[in-house]
């Protein structure tokens, strides 16, 4: 049943995106797409570099934490 499997895959992807969104984890593909749309001459970072920068920044000086 290819359509069924497709739906399951879509569902999983939606769940994953919600999880990433809730934990405010950035979307690498969307970032690359954004870079290419705004200025194609910029070479996008690799996925590993991208997450490294993100983590350093997220838990850097501006990080916030609540009770």
């Amino acid at each position, binding site marked *: 049943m290819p359509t069924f499997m497709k739906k399951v895959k879509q569902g999983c992807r939606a769940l*994953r*995106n919600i999880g990433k969104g809730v*934990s*405010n984890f950035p979307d690498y593909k969307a970032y690359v797409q*954004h870079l290419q749309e705004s200025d194609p001459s910029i070479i996008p970072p690799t*996925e590993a570099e991208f997450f490294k920068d993100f983590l350093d920044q997220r838990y*850097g000086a501006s*990080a916030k934490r*609540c*009770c």
Partner: protein
Amino acid sequence: METQPNIIQKKKRSTTMVLLWIAIALLGGFSLSIIALQRDEHINAIWFVVASLATYAVAYRFYSRFISNKIFGLNKKRATPAQLYNDGKDYVPTNKWVLYGHHFAAIAGAGPLVGPTLAAQMGYLPGTIWIIAGAVLAGCVQDFVVLIISMRRKGKSIGEIAREEIGPVGGYLALVGVFAIMVILIAVLGIVVVNALKASPWAMFTIAMTIPIALFMGVYMRFLRPGKIGEASIIGFVLLVLALVSGQWVADSATLAPLFTFEGKTIAYMMIGYGFLASVLPVWLLLAPRDYLSTFLKVGVIALLAIGIMIVLPEIKMPAISRFVDGTGPVFSGNLFPFLFITIACGAVSGFHSLISSGTSPKLIANEKHANMIGYGGMLTESFVAIMALVAATLLSPGVYFAINAPSAAIGTDVATAATTISSWGFSVSADEINNIASQVDESSILSRTGGAPSLAVGMAQIFSKIIGGPQLMAFWYHFAILFEAVFILTTIDAGTRVGRFMLQDLLGNIWKPIGRINWMPAVYATSALVVAGWGYFLVVGVTDPLGGINTLWPLFGITNQMLAAIALIVATTVIIKSNRAKYCWVTMAPLAWLLIVTMTAGWQKIFSPLPKIGFLKQAEVTQAALDAGKLPAAIPNADAAKQIIFNNQLDAVLTGIFMLLILGVLLDAMRIWYKVLIKKEQLPTSEESFKESTISEVS
């Protein structure tokens, strides 16, 4: 001709809507009156759920729209920072449900779980009314208004906004306030965890295992499969459940159990070491993976608790108003006014949220009209969490509740004395009953496990075990609840230490440049050690305090948190007045006035009350007198302990005084601006960004 039917249809729909809203309001009022008036029989938890949800719905529909339409004129055509500065990373237009989830996960921590549990000593009614009314009129307003103000200023932080709108003095004082509250917050949450872990090999083993699990997840996300947060989280969760299950074997094993059985002080020192490591190690290794695990666990368990309460519909055993409204309660000291209102901070109004509302969330909002749901709605959800914590605390029999939550200075250290003492307060309980609960949850003792986490865990275990597993799984659910609370409290502690380190580097960097360099290791080690020493001192003192660290430190935390809320509301009022909306400034000024009255009264009483249980100075004086006379009470073992108590009470008094002066300083600085605008009719500049039309029509 064609428009005619549309208008009629619209009218019809609005009539049904009006009727629906009247019905919701009536339902809410009816449930509230049941909660308020029921006296003779046990009341069912369903009334708390209905009363709160109906009130939230009405407030969200009418009050939040009033604020957004009349004061700020939120406009879906106005571009948000996420649109204007979209960089694909920090500023990203985000789906409003996803952002709502993120915002909620960021604001909700242990606060809304602990405060209501402690406040339950006064009965369920005072806490319930304050949680609902406080959230709707103060807490949600603060979160929402700060979110809007920050959203119209590129997502600037509350400190920056204070500096720009009030002045450098107010801004600097706000920054110092944030640092101070961070130190107290970490210490007090640390006590909560220590009291849950001490003498409990099962809980200790499970929490200890979260560290290697987090390290593995960190390596996985960094090297094995970069950025695969979903996979890593699932693996982490499975390992966590394994650790939880094997915790029981450890606890039952004669050889392993002693390895994981520690007294409170030892655990406190371990946490201090852990906090230091988390602050100096790279974030990807320990802090980030823990954070993800804790976020998912938090949202999941809170949802489970809500579902559990709605399925089980437990009966509330605590009286509506207990005798302890007179201020003689063992869990925290002081009268209902002002101390109930600082004991329940998060869940009703929490100043900490102003940091989140002016942090990540305003940079992610896709459409101005989403702010109602994120700001106002996010806090309503936290308030509901507080209501559920109150239900979980009050469904325990009051005798058991006091056995867990009263310090040993009040109920003694053995079960028989505790049972007699608590029964003499009018909450009959037998020694067997207390022992029974302890053996059900597989703990050696549940006496004086203060801090709220253990009693909440017993309440949660009672609910969950009624759905899955019955009494056999009580112990599993209890430790599951402890794990859940400890994991996200520890996440607050490690991330908070790190944030505190950056703040300190920032503050000290003004005096000596090199110390501000965040990559210079000597500076990193020095400032981390300073921050850890700051909260570590209060933690160790609180854990060893024979009078109960929670009893002393939780009010201090409540006062600082409410003061931060007052600072946020001062900033918000200033912005509203400066943008010529002064006729609506009561929206923020009324909760501000209430918070000022509450925190100033509480602060004054904590310093100068003639009752040693409440007043810091009197406690120091009484202890000194006892020391001089050589007649120390049984709870204080020796002269050194007495000297420690005297010094700590004096220190706490000074701190409280500093906090009070701080808030008055910010208030006076802001009133200078209010005077200029309202009386001298000066037109002052604001830092609000000008209107730019939105380029995207709808974000999915």
